[in-house]
């Protein structure tokens, strides 16, 4: 069975991670910050999974179980993150991160 080379998978993962990091750093909307974090977690999962295919036997399967926990952590993160976003929006009435400058004043 033909497969995809490891380095192509890893470079796809690196590109997706860089796109997610750029989204977190550049965008000023809290929704986009959260979505950038999700994108970075996806890239990490892809890297995890492609490295698990390098191993043999039980190590491959353990490498496939680890992203499952990463997905569960991502679900918890999205849940708490969105609740915090709601709470922040209720007090400040904006999602613009440039507006959250109360600690600077």
């Amino acid at each position, binding site marked *: 069975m*033909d*497969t*995809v*080379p*490891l*380095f*192509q998978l*890893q*470079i*796809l993962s*690196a*590109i*997706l*991670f*860089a*796109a*997610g990091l*750029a*989204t*977190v750093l*550049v*965008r*000023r*909307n809290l*929704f*986009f910050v959260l*979505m*950038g974090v*999700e*994108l970075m977690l*996806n890239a990490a*999962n*892809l890297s995890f*999974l492609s490295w*698990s*295919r*390098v191993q*043999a036997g*039980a190590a*491959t*399967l*353990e490498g*496939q*179980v680890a*992203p*499952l926990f990463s*997905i*569960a952590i*991502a*679900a*918890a993160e*999205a*849940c708490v993150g*969105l609740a*915090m*976003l*709601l*709470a922040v929006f209720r007090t400040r009435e904006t*999602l*613009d991160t440039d507006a959250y400058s109360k600690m600077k004043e």
Partner: protein
Amino acid sequence: MIAQVYFWIFAAIAVACAFSVLASRHPINGAMALIGTMVSLAGVYSLIASPFLATLQILVYAGAIMMLVVFVIMVLNSAKDHYTPMLDGLGAFGFVIAALIGVLVARVFVGLDGKASVKINPSAPRGDVEAISKTLFGSGMHTGGWALLFLAIGLVLLTAIVGAVLLAKRHLDTAETSTEGGH
């Protein structure tokens, strides 16, 4: 070579959607593009013989998590990006940092191409439901204690849900809404 063709299609869709998350103005457009990235990543997962993780990717990521995100975007209707500059000093700095990290990581992985020991193992077992459930819940000597970790992750999710409810309902305790709810 058919796997390679499918991989290029999925990778092109994933990268295009990822950059449109970066570029889109309204959060709904960004969320839809992110769902595109996640679904094509599920395709990549099934290409590298991990059908269970591909299913989980669509069910949990593209289904549950992004549904929650889209739901909150629709609740906060005034959440549109107010055309904040993306290419001022801070934004350009972010682009440079992200590109630098991406290039550095990619540079490391390009070196993997020639090394014989770090190739995809074609005889590695398929990550289907049976194999993964045996690893996760198996009770032999050589299981890595994943079942205990699975219980712990249940507690983490429960804590996250309780915390989210507490964070989101705090507003109900303040005076303005309690008088509203009084009559």
